[in-house]
């Protein structure tokens, strides 16, 4: 680490306000930051914490309804950024200060080829073009691991995947060797696998240069894996600033501690303990309390906290904390549960000899679960049975196909899935975007009509689409959607929303439905007064609670949860997960829980199914999934999880980020184009068999389970396998 004493960026006393209806509301107050060359400082906060506002202010990008209040200082190298005109800033933007936004697709000009755009940047920065610029660009594309850089340069942005677009924006930002780089959630919205690749890239690129990076994110895992120092923002104020190790190991602020312990860690399961969570919601910008901004939600709150705002104190070791009771925190009045680390040592010692090898004979079972998968955890009756379920979306013919009279191959979104779910159990479904998991959910709920295969609920065949299903089936199947913003009708009150299914599906009278709606509200921990509110008066977490109450209203046997917490803030997310677990205990409903976040799925699920390109590749008990043997794909997914623990280090398995199209699926094993453990031609020609391990654990791969176990327990390095 090139830790010079020179600060690249010094920010003091920065207060940023927004105009809301003729009033200036300070969104960020008294912000402070030190950044040295070559350092990555993380800025973590939930939505509304002001982290993106800080980024905009640092970049001088504030729109006309935002302003930096006087009295602050914003010093970049020798330049006082607050005194700069836009024209002067433009010179800095051209070369010395760069920004990487969250939405790469929006940042790239859709009508200009990638190569032209990147070379433009170089021209603006250093005035070079032609051959020299082209070779610099190729070098940079190579540095950001873009495969086939010549072809990428010739493409338009929409022809690239999200991960590749983000690499391009990073290349554009770094090509002029900037001194300061501000990254605003650059991996949010990407798959974990892609995220891992991008983080790795950023880490590598920064360590080679002297660029200082301000990295803005809501994801503690990303911070732990990437940053040197971390600032925690809450409701526009710095709560704590420390080195990443200090922050995660000895948080001095109750909010930091709450945040860290509310993230489910990989391998943590509901059967062990509830998740910690922070009660309540962050304060609205317009109603910032006078004392400590966290007082409403703080477990340590005392009278002093509400009366006097705690100052931002500098502790002996250079950390900052804003809390009246940090000394007690130091002594450990609040403590976090120990972080389980199931990933590091192999829990199942590899069986090299002796004993009976478990199902490793390459026995080909095409319908593994129907034909005798045995779940030790599931002793309820079979609730839902999915057999060979398929959804092929037809593709419109293009001109060539019309002329040639050929049919285009359909998009095989779900392509032969067998699943079994027992009453009262949770089945987690994971996979990258494009794996078909959401389509599978929509087939089951009946929003999409299946192209083939069967679906049985309690032993009875279920019809294709909701329109054909009986009242009885409808009331047994419910769904909680991903986006709380859209899942409630903005023109219906909470009471109207919840009582409708009661009246429609359970035949309640209006009065009885109203009473029951209140009871349901109470069960999702919302006060009765919420009944008369409208969605725009609720926070994201509250909306999701209402959506959960609505799903439970018909007393269903199975609730499909499609990414129900991924749009929520970390501190709210854990409370919703706890709620889901508690409601399941009370009602005995089963969940089909879909998420791209393995830790979240791992927390709630009893069994987990891993999906890739329309097919399942691994099914097993939740705890099995985080141990060897893994399917090579699962292994990559698990290794890509950004673990919120800076000491955690695992060899990341980096997958290329071009998922094959579901219209043109790879032959043999569908994963072979990206599989780091591919054993040879057989993977390209033959469909892999299902192999059965302990407790009904099923893996679909040509590699026998014993060999997988050995390889994945670290006894044999990855390279030796292929």
């Amino acid at each position, binding site marked *: 680490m090139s830790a010079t004493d020179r600060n690249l960026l010094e920010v003091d006393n920065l207060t940023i306000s927004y105009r809301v209806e003729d009033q200036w509301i300070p969104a960020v107050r008294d912000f402070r930051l030190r950044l040295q060359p070559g350092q990555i400082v993380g800025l973590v906060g939930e939505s509304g914490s002001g982290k993106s506002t800080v980024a905009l202010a640092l970049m001088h990008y504030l729109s006309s309804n935002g302003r930096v209040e006087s009295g602050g200082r914003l010093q970049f190298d020798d330049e006082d950024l607050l005194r700069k005109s836009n024209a002067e800033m433009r010179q800095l933007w051209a070369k010395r200060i760069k920004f990487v936004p969250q939405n790469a697709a929006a940042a790239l000009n859709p009508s200009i080829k990638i190569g032209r755009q990147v070379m433009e940047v170089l021209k603006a920065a250093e005035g070079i073009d032609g051959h020299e610029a082209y070779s610099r660009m190729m070098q940079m594309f190579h540095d950001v691991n873009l495969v086939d850089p010549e072809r990428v340069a010739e493409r338009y942005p929409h022809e690239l995947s999200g991960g590749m677009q983000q690499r391009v924006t990073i290349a554009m930002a770094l090509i002029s060797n900037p001194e300061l780089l501000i990254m605003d959630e650059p991996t949010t919205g990407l798959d974990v696998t892609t995220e891992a690749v991008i983080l790795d890239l950023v880490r590598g690129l920064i360590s080679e240069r002297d660029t200082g990076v301000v990295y803005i994110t809501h994801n503690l895992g990303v911070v732990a894996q990437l940053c040197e120092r971390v600032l925690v923002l809450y409701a526009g104020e710095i709560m704590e600033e420390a080195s990443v190790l200090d922050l995660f190991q000895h948080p001095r602020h109750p909010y930091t501690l709450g945040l860290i312990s509310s993230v489910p860690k990989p391998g943590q399961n509901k059967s062990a303990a509830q998740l910690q969570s922070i009660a309540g919601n962050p304060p609205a910008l317009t109603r910032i309390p006078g004392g400590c901004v966290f007082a409403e939600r703080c477990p340590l709150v005392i009278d002093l906290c509400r009366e006097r705002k705690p100052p931002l104190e500098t502790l002996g070791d250079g950390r900052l904390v804003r809390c009246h009771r940090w000394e007690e925190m130091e002594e450990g009045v609040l403590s976090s549960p120990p972080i389980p680390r199931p990933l590091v040592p192999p829990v199942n010692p590899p069986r090299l000899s002796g004993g009976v090898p478990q199902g490793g004979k390459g026995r080909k079972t095409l319908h593994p679960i129907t034909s005798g998968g045995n779940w030790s955890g599931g002793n309820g009756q079979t609730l839902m049975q999915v057999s060979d379920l398929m959804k092929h979306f037809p593709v419109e013919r293009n001109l060539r196909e019309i002329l040639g009279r050929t049919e285009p191959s359909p998009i095989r979104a779900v392509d032969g899935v067998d699943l079994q779910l027992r009453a009262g159990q949770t089945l987690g479904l994971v996979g990258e975007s494009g794996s078909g998991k959401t389509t599978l959910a929509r087939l089951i709920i009946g929003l999409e009509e299946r192209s083939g295969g069967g679906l049985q609920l309690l032993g009875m065949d279920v019809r294709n689409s909701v329109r054909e299903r009986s009242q009885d089936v409808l009331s047994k199947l419910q769904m909680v959607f991903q986006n709380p913003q859209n899942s409630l009708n903005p*023109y219906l009150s909470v009471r109207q929303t919840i009582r409708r299914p009661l009246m429609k599906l359970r035949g309640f009278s209006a009065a009885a439905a109203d009473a029951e709606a209140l009871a349901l509200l109470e069960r999702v921990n919302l006060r009765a007064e919420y009944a008369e509110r*409208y969605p725009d008066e609720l926070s994201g977490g509250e909306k999701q609670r209402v959506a959960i109450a609505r799903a439970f209203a018909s007393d269903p046997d199975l609730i499909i949860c499609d990414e129900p917490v991924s749009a929520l803030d970390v501190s709210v997310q854990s409370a919703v997960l706890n709620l889901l677990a508690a409601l399941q205990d009370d009602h005995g409903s089963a969940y089909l829980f879909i998420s791209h976040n393995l830790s979240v799925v791992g927390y709630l699920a009893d069994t987990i199914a891993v999906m890739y390109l329309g097919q399942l590749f691994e099914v097993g008990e939740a705890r099995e999934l985080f141990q060897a043997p893994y399917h090579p794909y699962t292994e990559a997914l698990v290794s890509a999880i950004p673990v919120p623990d800076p000491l955690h280090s695992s060899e990341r398995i980096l997958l290329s980020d071009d998922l094959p199209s579901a219209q043109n699926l790879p032959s043999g094993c569908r994963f072979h184009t990206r599989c780091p453990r591919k054993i040879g031609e057989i993977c390209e020609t033959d469909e892999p068999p299902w192999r059965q391990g302990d407790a009904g654990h099923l893996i679909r791969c040509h590699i026998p389970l014993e060999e997988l176990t050995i390889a994945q327990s670290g006894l044999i390095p990855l390279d030796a396998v292929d």
Partner: protein
Amino acid sequence: MKLETISRLYVAIKRTARSQLRHPQSAAGTLLVAFFLILALFGPQLAPHRNPNDQSHDVRVPPTLDLGALQLGEHPFGTDRLGRDVYSRVILGAGSIFRIAGLGTLISVILGSALGLFMGYQGGWVDEVIGRVIDALLAIPALLLALVLIGIIRNLDFAAGSWQAALADNVILLVISVLYIPIVARVARSTTLDIKTREFVEAAQIRGESQFYIIFREILPSVIPSLVVEASLRFSYAIFLVASLGFLGFGARPPSPDWGLMVNENRGGFYQLTPWALEFPALAIAILVIAVNLMSDGIRRAVQKGT
């Protein structure tokens, strides 16, 4: 339930009003429209001469309106060549233009949004077929279509008292509807397409709600803001259309005090004699069209901000 809807509506109106105030030009537009509306409603009470065709006055009296002294005088806008009081005729003309344009807009918005909601929600070939018909209709220039329709209907010989005859009497209403239903339907359809993919609509489908319930209870409320904007826009075009048809001699028939007709009747040689008999109705048309436009601008701004 109704009460809640009303209270929501009230909030929306309040917000619209507040945002109107922040933009003086749309506030001015709204006030002017309100002024004309009062003329339209209470014209017979406000006009000095209740009968627009009262020819008992002197002919070709120049306007007696004196803005400096703030005096109206005997014939503020003068009298025309037949001795009719132009001031009274302008006031009384407001009623017909508001009635036809307003009613036409109302019919178009109701039928058009029902059609658009249905098309948008149903999708598939229904949407495809109706969509093509709409495209074809919209490809014809509005005025041409209007003239053709009027020509056809006026030339048909209907038995007096039959519904066809009633239709022929209200041919302008019919024209407005034929012209604007497709336009409103298109707006409603595109908003519906957006709303129907929202998850709350899917939640309703999962409950097995009927199509009618989903369209009117779940989707319609979210479509209303864009319909309100479209309605105010349609209204301003309708006023222009009614005035144009009157001017071309296809609208109201003499001696009705229709503004467009009044402009037409006092064109050419008559303009030299009684310029005021043309200028005041023309001015009324211009002011009303501009006012409605400003108002609809304000409504659009308020609605877009609210969403």
